[in-house]
């Protein structure tokens, strides 16, 4: 039994290491290829010929976001792209979110034939601005649906363009986001159903009027660790998966989706706690079932900045929700697992999610308990023990360091080179200070799902971006 368990953990770690090595190689090739393929010249075509640029709808649900809503909408309205609309879905906010929107953007209710193409809670009103400066803004006021998915559906129903961005109001998008994210769609000979991009932490950045004026790594520990974690996920994992068209998840924080495919696949699942992964997989399943060729692309550039959990309490909320969502996702979509009708989704994406994302915290936690047992029962061979510890530690560290170098290859975002070294330095402590927390909180999410406890959409507490309202550097006090 002891041998079986030891070997199980060992081979699991080795498989993970080899997997990541493979992804690192693929993502390196893919990142360089992407960098040369799409230059400023391609982006300029869209600006020079605005009538040819495909329209994009930006859908951002807002629930009790009075602190940040003004800056956030302003920031979205000022993106540098010729044809887009901003759809803010007020998901039954109980604070002054809607009042602020009406007052600041000179909104008035307009008659609108609202078609429920995908299910959502009833829509009360549609608002548009009287001021031409805000002509791109539409506000949907609806009853609270309890999940982001429900609010997204309300926005998708009203979106007029073929592609829409799924984002949150607490996210700050780079000014050239839309031209960067649409290029892979325009340049593909296959139907691109979704595009993801790199997300980073806004904590620590200097923000002025909803625009990031200085990118910095976060000052607090948890967002700092999460910055490296995000970079690993986007620049290594997703860029690697993108090479073989097997991206498991286009993030709910920021992603471009084909509206018609989303509608055809039934829209976002209001009951899901991982609505982004659920939607991605259902879109892929729809394309497979209808025998249509498709691509999901990952853009390596950092296009979206979001508030990371500033403390353990908020991290706990975030990760337990992700944990719940993960387990729910696997149970809901078990039919895809090793199902040859779904090709890569069945034989690559689902096994990866089950073995390396869902099982990882379980194996790590039981491995830790097992180690304690071996230590107490004096069954540890210390000649090789340190070797095994170094092995497990180096898997994470090496990937983090390589990731930071990939990020730098794409362009220097931090002004100071030492800020990159800060990321590297702190990634050395991630395995000790941060990762155990993530494991515990994810397991807690699994337990919550199984016991059906605390099934609420966790909410972040915002402090806001605007220098006029608070400080010009974002700190969260949840």
């Amino acid at each position, binding site marked *: 039994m002891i041998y079986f368990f030891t070997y199980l953990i060992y081979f699991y770690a080795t498989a993970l290491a080899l997997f990541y090595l493979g992804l690192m190689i693929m993502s390196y090739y893919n990142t360089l290829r992407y960098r*040369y393929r799409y230059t400023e010249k391609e982006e300029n*075509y869209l600006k020079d010929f605005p009538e040819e640029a495909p329209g994009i709808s930006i859908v951002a649900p807002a629930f009790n976001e009075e602190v940040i809503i003004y800056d956030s909408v302003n920031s979205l309205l000022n993106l540098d792209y010729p044809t887009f609309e901003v759809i803010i879905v007020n998901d039954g906010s109980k604070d002054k979110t809607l009042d602020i929107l009406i007052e600041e953007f000179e909104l008035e209710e307009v*008659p609108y034939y609202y078609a429920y193409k995908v299910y959502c809670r009833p829509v009360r009103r549609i608002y548009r601005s009287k001021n031409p400066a805000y002509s791109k803004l539409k506000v949907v006021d609806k009853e609270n649906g309890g999940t982001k998915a429900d609010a997204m559906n309300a926005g998708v129903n009203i979106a007029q363009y073929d592609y829409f961005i799924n984002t949150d109001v607490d996210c700050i998008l780079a000014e050239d986001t839309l031209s960067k994210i649409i290029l892979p769609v*325009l340049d*593909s000979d296959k139907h691109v159903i979704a595009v993801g991009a790199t997300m980073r932490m806004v904590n620590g950045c200097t923000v002025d009027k909803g625009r990031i004026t200085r990118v910095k790594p976060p000052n607090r520990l948890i967002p700092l660790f999460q910055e490296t974690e995000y970079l690993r996920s986007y620049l290594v994992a997703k860029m690697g998966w993108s090479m073989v068209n097997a991206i498991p998840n286009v993030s709910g924080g920021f992603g471009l989706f084909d509206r018609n495919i989303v509608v055809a696949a039934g829209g976002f699942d209001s009951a899901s706690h991982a609505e982004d992964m659920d939607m991605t997989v259902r879109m892929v399943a729809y394309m497979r079932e209808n025998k249509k060729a498709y691509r999901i692309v990952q853009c390596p550039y950092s296009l979206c900045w979001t508030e990371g959990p500033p403390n353990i309490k908020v991290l706990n909320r975030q990760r337990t929700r992700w944990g719940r969502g993960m387990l729910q996702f696997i149970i809901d979509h078990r039919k895809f697992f090793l199902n040859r009708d779904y090709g890569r989704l069945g034989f690559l994406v689902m096994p990866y999610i089950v073995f390396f994302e869902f099982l990882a915290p379980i194996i790590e936690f039981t491995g830790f308990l097992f180690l304690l047992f071996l230590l107490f029962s004096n069954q540890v061979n210390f000649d090789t023990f340190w*070797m095994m510890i*170094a092995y497990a530690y180096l898997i994470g560290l090496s990937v983090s360091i390589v990731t*930071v170098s990939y990020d*730098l290859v794409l362009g220097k975002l931090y002004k100071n080179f030492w800020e990159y070294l800060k990321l590297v330095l702190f990634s050395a402590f991630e395995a000790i200070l941060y990762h155990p927390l993530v494991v515990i909180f994810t397991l807690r999410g699994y337990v919550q799902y199984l016991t059906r406890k605390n099934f609420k959409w966790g909410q972040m507490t915002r402090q806001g971006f605007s220098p006029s309202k608070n400080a010009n550097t974002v700190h969260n006090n949840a």
Partner: protein
Amino acid sequence: MYYDYYLYYLSYLSSVYNGYPLIIRITVVMVMVLAAITLFGVFRLLYIGYRMNRKEKTKKGTRDHFEEKLTFVMRNKVNYEVEEIQELLQYDTNRAKRWKSDVLTDIVLTVKNSVYKEGELNEINYKNCIEALRLMGFWEKRIRTSGPDKRKEALQIVGAIDNGINSGILSKSTFHKNKHLRKTARDLHTSQDSYNPFRFMEENFDEAFTQLDKLRLHSTLIKRSKEGRLPNLLRWINNSKNPNYIVFILREVGFFKQYEAAPTLMEMLDRQENRDVRAQVILTLGELGYLECASSLIERFHLETNVVREAIITTMGNLQARENLDFLVEAYRSTEDVNSKLIIARSIKSHGEYGNQELLRLQQEAYVKANENENTLLNQVFSETAILPV
């Protein structure tokens, strides 16, 4: 020579773990590999940082030295000789390092674009600046000798310099197996070649024709149209079987207002089996304001697919002939699809005062029938101009 050393240390390492199970030996190897990746990653990071800093510094130095002088020359109404410019810039091309041409191109293009925007660009001096700095030679060499990614970048820069290029240099790239490089080269050929620029346009441009290629070619055709009249674009689709390419050319026919193409387009409408192509033919006829097509479009409206029907409605809106209003109103009444109703209502509204009257009449009918949905839909269309355009 070093092989013996490696062998020695390898033997030493294997002796240390001699007698251990295979799994431990594998772990040792894995730890060494991961440690090497970690160290390599750190050094690579430091190296990239160093290179970036150095590039920034040199760029700043070069910019400080050249920018002002280049702006002076390109803006000046007096034409300067190449030697005069070289003397002014104090730049010895024979001693210049390779990276310098790269940085200089960036500066030249920035200066050119800003002076051009101000409407003060002296084209002769600009071309002489390129000659004085020997930039074309540098980029042509890169096109000939680099790998696909760098070559594609070089092609784009040559396109931005816009100083013409010998098509012989491009020939290798225009048939390269890398489709991105190939298409960039073909676009550059169309944009810069003076002998047979539209060669690839006649040959379907490329089998992997995407939306981005449409943008590239649209830009190139605009540039060509500024230099002289474009040929009849329809001749490029005679041999094409790619509907995507045909649709693009048809759009360009409308964009460049090639009115003489309208009768041929009417003939095409009867022949074409692809619905997207038919829809684009109809939209192009609308763009060209070809009023004669109206009766034919009305005839085929009820037999067509949704895409083509929507194109007919949009075209009717573009043509804005009063006699088409009856048709649009009838189409509105007969359709059940909400999306189509919206398009038709907008098309009716584009007919101005008469259109608004018809919409009011339709709203009255909806009111009488107590059709709340239709009433809302028409109110929406009315409010779109009252509040803001769609």
